[in-house]
């Protein structure tokens, strides 16, 4: 007997690196579960659908997964697809476990949770509050310059709560600069931030722009720390060809390489693909763990049972932390992040951090 688990990722297109990483992580988890006898004797099988980072493709893909009998779906990496899927999945009743960090994906406008949507990493609000709190409460930087991609939902959703937190905590937004998709030259914006006298730069964006900004920061002589998003995690520093430039950057990652619970997956991955895993691999792995846990708690392997079990998940030890899904928000609660500082191209770990506000 087989239990189908859907997997919706970008396999082609600009964000396929992530899609592949998540898929590999999920596959490792499934192989492990199957090797241990599956779930009540039934083997798990992952069916992957390409979403091409496109809403239309995703809806077709989700419907196709539902038609072929998938009981749960490892969800899309981006929020826009999550937003489009929420009502459709609510009707179809096959739960989606994803990395759509926009809180609107899991909580509807009426304040009730979206029945079939579950987030498995800090939401954008949680994440950016962690970063903001770290900026102001730990580093003591109060005059923040912000640069973000205005046309990118991911960036915008990481920017707003950050700015709100900083303002609420008595900080000041010295300059708020934007760019749009396809822009490659940020010198003008960076120069403005320099003029405004900011004492740090918050830059919540994809890895590639992160590299460009890091390089161009040096070219305009902007010498302040960068408070970065998840994408500054490895392999970011190795991609900046000037180690002098990859310096004085703070970021938060989902896990620390040193943490023991990673070891097993880390080694399997390295053995299989000959390279170090990135954080998306562990996120993919944990999503399968979460689905399995939901099956246990829901009392069976049907879609409805998985869906019922999901909000009951509590204190599940994953590779990226200890997971508890809130039944009110369908988001994990109290997840901490591991803080890092990049100095001359090298990552220095600063320990896990979670702001007071998040500790319940």
């Amino acid at each position: 007997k087989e239990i189908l688990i859907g997997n919706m990722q970008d396999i082609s297109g600009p964000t396929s690196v992530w899609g592949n990483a998540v898929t590999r992580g999920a596959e490792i988890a499934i192989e492990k579960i199957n090797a241990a006898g599956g779930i009540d004797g039934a083997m798990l099988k992952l069916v992957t659908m390409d979403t091409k980072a496109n809403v239309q493709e995703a809806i077709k893909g989700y419907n196709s997964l539902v038609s072929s009998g998938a009981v749960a779906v490892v969800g899309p990496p981006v929020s826009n697809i999550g937003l489009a899927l929420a009502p459709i999945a609510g009707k179809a009743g096959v739960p989606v476990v994803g990395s759509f960090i926009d809180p609107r994906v899991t909580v509807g406008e009426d304040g009730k949770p979206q029945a079939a949507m579950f987030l498995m990493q800090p939401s954008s609000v949680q994440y950016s509050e962690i970063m903001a709190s770290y900026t102001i409460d730990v580093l003591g930087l109060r005059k923040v310059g912000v640069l973000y991609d205005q046309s990118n939902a991911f960036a915008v959703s990481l920017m707003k709560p950050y700015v709100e937190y900083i303002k609420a905590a008595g900080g000041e937004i010295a300059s708020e600069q934007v760019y749009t998709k396809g822009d490659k030259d940020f010198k003008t914006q960076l120069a403005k931030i320099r003029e405004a006298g900011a004492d740090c730069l918050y830059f919540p964006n994809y890895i590639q722009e992160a590299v460009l900004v890091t390089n161009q920061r040096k070219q305009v002589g902007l010498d302040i720390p960068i408070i970065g998003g998840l994408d500054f995690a490895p392999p970011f520093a190795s991609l900046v060809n000037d180690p002098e430039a990859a310096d004085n950057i703070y970021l938060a990652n989902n896990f620390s390489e040193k943490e023991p619970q990673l070891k097993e997956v880390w080694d399997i991955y390295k053995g299989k693909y000959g390279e170090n895993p990135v954080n998306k691999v562990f996120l993919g792995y944990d999503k399968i763990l979460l689905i399995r846990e939901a099956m246990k708690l829901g009392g069976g392997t049907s879609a409805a049972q998985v869906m019922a079990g999901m909000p009951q998940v509590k204190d599940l030890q994953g590779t990226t932390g200890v997971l508890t899904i809130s039944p009110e928000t369908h988001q994990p609660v109290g997840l901490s992040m591991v803080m890092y500082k990049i100095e001359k191209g090298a990552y220095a770990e600063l320990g896990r951090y979670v702001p007071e506000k998040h500790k319940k």
Partner: protein
Amino acid sequence: MDYFISTVIFTGIALIGVLGVYLITGLTGLFSLGQAAFMAIGGYVSAVLIRNYSVPVVPAVALAIAAAMLAALLVGLPTVRLRRDYISLVTLGFGEAIVALLNNSANITGGAMGISGIPQLTTLPVVLASVAVCLALVILYKNSKYGRQCLALRSDELAAKSMGINVYRLKLVTFLFAGALTGYSGVLFGFYTTYLEPAAFNWIISAEWTIIVFVGGVNSLTGTVLATILLTGLPEFLRFASEWRVAIYCVIVLLIVNYRTAGIMGEHELSPKSVRRLLSRMKGVRP
């Protein structure tokens, strides 16, 4: 079943947009790289009216189409007198401007984070009926003085003027008609996905639609319809190819464009007459 229905619905929505490109490019020989913008306008206007202002559906849709036409008028008025090559530039710029506008009016449109929770009103019957009506309108247009004049203008603008054709007006009318169709396809799109975001409406869509029109046949509507079904369905069939999917799709398009230059249907239309002719020819071949 849901899967099949959603595929049909998306194909239908694309077809209505492609018909717009057919009018502009296939019939009139103008190049638009900004059709997606009209789609965005249709989708956003209807969604915002219904969600934020609780306007009833029918007037909201009508207003959305009107808005798309107004935008087409704004772009068209200054450009129809320019050299043709400029139209693709202006429409490209227009497309980017609209996306920027959507991103910048976050309090109305939700900006980059998009607008969600649009009621799902697009159902299979709605799409099929819409396709039938739009197709009928375009067929009529093609087979009237408008269609002929468009083709004439595409062949030779100067001669067309000298035959008494008001080419500026004609271009504008065609542009508006296409704008209305595209806007409507945007409405259907928003009402199906229930979520709209500016990033979905880039110039690549216009390029894809143009490809479909010419894969279908120079000015054959039947070909356009066939090609839409084929090329929007193709990626579904190619799902097994995983990361090779888009590459294979491109190769197929290249083969058709290069080895069947006139497109699938050439300049032919599938009409009762042509079917009869084909049948009689097939009979003739049989010994």
